[in-house]
């Protein structure tokens, strides 16, 4: 098992190097505009553009820029400096990572708990009103874009602009250590919005997976042996959950993408919001840093999923 984990970790590092190289090509070699031109004002004088290129290190050859970029990332864990605020990208991300983690971890918990329980209930109450209602709701949740859903939630439930003034609105986020209760209440709507899509997918998948499992011979045998229904269901869930775990790894990427929009709608100062603004300003070092961080999380989540999968199904680690 340990050899398997080491192998996965090494693959993860290699993947990160590839992603870092790709982001360099994407943002430095193929940019849509010269960042020095953007920084040089509306009527950029050629001399000034050259000065700014020197200032931002863009006058160096691409291989030199690439070497310095990779060296900074892998030796010092530095992603460069924002073209605008001149602040280090690592510190910019560091200041925001707790907000993004608060949002995504909370949403992930909600999506797993919500998705799995709805899926299990639907599978066990197939073709009943409860099942139809749950699956209909899931379809709506899958179809609703997070951006739109967030706006609808604010107009309905935000304490400032909502019809029913229940939850704190956009811009109300505070850090967990600053005020835990405010932190919790400010994240209720964002969690629900961010978790809704993935939760609905999980619910539908769990329903079909568990329905299939509950029709297997070993379930019939268990029932014939007189096991209580709760234990029978537990056996079924354990068998049905494998495809869900695989999907979890993939959904982390979707979750981070969704976080970008949800952070923007609810004005949560997270990494997604930082990335969103950086894209608008062509602030490439910040965009690169956030993309790399997201890649790191996705790779890590997938390694965790692979290990969990290998633990649950030993055939995987021997293949």
């Amino acid at each position: 098992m340990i050899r398997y984990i080491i192998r996965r970790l090494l693959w993860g590092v290699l993947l990160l190097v590839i992603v870092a190289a790709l982001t360099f090509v994407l943002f430095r070699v193929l940019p849509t505009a010269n960042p020095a031109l953007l920084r040089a004002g509306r009527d950029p004088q050629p001399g000034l553009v050259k000065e700014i290129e020197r200032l931002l290190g863009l006058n160096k050859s691409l291989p030199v820029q690439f070497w310095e970029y990779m060296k900074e990332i892998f030796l010092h864990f530095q992603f460069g400096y924002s073209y605008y605020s001149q602040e280090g990208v690592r510190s910019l991300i560091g200041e925001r990572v707790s907000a993004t983690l608060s949002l995504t971890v909370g949403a992930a918990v909600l999506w797993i708990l919500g998705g799995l329980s709805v899926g299990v209930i639907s599978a066990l109450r197939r073709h009943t009103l409860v099942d139809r209602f749950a699956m209909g709701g899931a379809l709506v949740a899958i179809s609703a874009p997070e951006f739109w859903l967030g706006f609808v939630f604010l107009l309905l439930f935000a304490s400032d602009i909502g019809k029913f003034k229940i939850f704190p609105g956009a811009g109300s986020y505070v850090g967990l250590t600053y005020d835990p209760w405010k932190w919790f209440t400010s994240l209720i709507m964002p969690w629900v919005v961010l978790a809704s899509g993935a939760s609905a997918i999980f619910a539908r998948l769990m329903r079909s997976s568990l329905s299939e499992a509950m029709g297997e011979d070993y379930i019939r045998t268990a029932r014939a042996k007189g096991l209580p229904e709760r234990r029978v269901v537990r056996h079924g869930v354990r068998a049905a959950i494998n495809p869900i775990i695989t999907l979890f790894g993939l959904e982390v990427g979707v979750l981070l993408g969704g976080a970008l929009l949800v952070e923007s709608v609810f004005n949560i100062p997270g990494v997604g919001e930082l990335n969103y603004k950086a894209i608008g300003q062509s602030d490439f070092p910040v965009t690169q840093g956030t993309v790399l961080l997201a890649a790191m999380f996705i790779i890590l989540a997938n390694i965790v999923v692979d290990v969990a999968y290998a633990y649950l199904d030993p055939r995987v680690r021997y293949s």
Partner: protein
Amino acid sequence: MKFTRTMLCVAVGALALALAACGSSESGSSSGSSSSAGANGASAVTPPPGYQSSVDESLSGKRGGTLEVLQEADFEHLDPGISYFALDYEVVFATQRPLYSNKPNQNETVPDMAASAPEVSADGKTITVHLKEGIHFSPPVNREVTAQDVAYAIERGANENVANPYLQSYFASIEGMPQAKGGPVKGIETPNKHEIVFHLTEPKGTFVAEALCLPITAAVPKEYAEKFDKNKPSNYAAYEVATGPYMLKNNAAGKVLGVGYVPGKSATLVRNPNWNAKTDFRPAYLNEINIKIGGTQAVIDRQVLEGSDVVQNEPVAQSAVRLAAEHYKSQLDLSPGGGNRYITLNSKSGPFTNINLRKAVWAALDREALDKVRGGSLVSNVATHFIYPTIPGFTQAGGLAGPKLDYDEHPEGNLAVAEKYMKLAGYPSGKYTGTKTVQVVGASSSPEKEDAEIVNQTLKKLGFNTKLTLVEIATMYAKYCNVPKEEIEVCPTVGWIADFADPQTVLKPTFDGEGIVATGNVNQGQFDDPTINAAMKAAETVNGKENRAKAWGKIDDELVENAAAIPYDWEKAPRLEASDVHGVAMLWNEGAWDYSFTSLK
């Protein structure tokens, strides 16, 4: 996305005249706007009564309170030596005092750090400015401001670690400035603590004196800032000190970054304890301004309209302008002078080297439709020439009606006139029969996309084969329209905003053939007429505001006669405020809020 680079110190018609026009029953145009002309021709198109707050009203503002500001975008640069963006200027002009400034609703600059108007010598080659006494830097510097601080502020703009974006555009005629690298400049002298003299190599005294209202003239203490300016790039902004009524909150060491300004999150302006109200014309009612950065425009608009002690800080979405105009009228602030928009046609290569083809497109174009996609007369006027309302020379160039030319007289488009020019261009059928496919490159965002589509349809009506490409707006400029070698025939959504109240800043960068460069070229149509180039060169050295308004107004006429581009829109800038806020907008700065005049009710 709107082209948001700032205009600085853009003029607005004299307040009294503007208010008189506003209240006059004879002054309303069909669009609900009115106009008034200042002595130098800086006409102001004033919005309907009830929309625009004025300085007079704000002078009776309530003292105290905290204003909350919601803005989606972050600041770009808060260092007064780099800052060049409307949003940045809101903070910069509340915290810094340049030599001259604009009162929010006036077109004339007034002495700010300076004690009196600039003294321009008879030959136009020397400018002398006397400074007020008793102005101090905020903590931790605390000492009195001197002329040497103003000299350093300008000189550091040439330091490559600062790299001011407009220094060489407006101050290159100061002796030694083109060669400057950040050290002392020969043409800037400080004979004593309260006097600064600029020696010019050309007789451009009036123009350079006008530019002294740019924030680069806000004093910077050399002994404090030099160590930050040695960093590559300078991080003076992280520790900057103030001279204005407010300062960015800092700690004992003077650090602003992470204290009073957290990139992407917030900025906090507090009172500058060393500000002396007796030396300033600003009332500075508010105790504190908390700026929240981030969020989404649609949500912010709602939060402001239904909120308390809060203002919205960026160009408002069309839907919100409509909502506010219908249900929250007193909370909608509309400022004229949001710049011009025009369509460039490549006059260097391709079919539009033929002047009559350019006139034909102008005549056929439905400029009212272009105006409507931007929100109609509430937020814009159909443009008839290039110098826009609030800029000196607007009246001389024809005012709202514009010059009497048949291809300009039909804002709804006139195909009969267009046909006449097609025939003059050598197409007897009235349709283009050439084989060239015309490249049209526009922006993919709304309403620029709709603009591009209207222009594309007009070209098709005239028989042109077109290829329409829609890209992100920054890409449109940086990769296509501002790169001459790409040979783009039509750029339908370009525009310009002046940097300060002088018509040269509207026309010269955009239509001077001698200023065409390989990249970052803002003369997108590559218009290069030797006669007009020479007229611009001559007008640059014209002194006296009225004379300059006349000279540049005449150049505007010539540009229209040569169909250098097709102007279609003069924009107004909408902003939203809560019902308990008395927001005062800087008309010279795209209607951005003036925190030094805004108050709570």
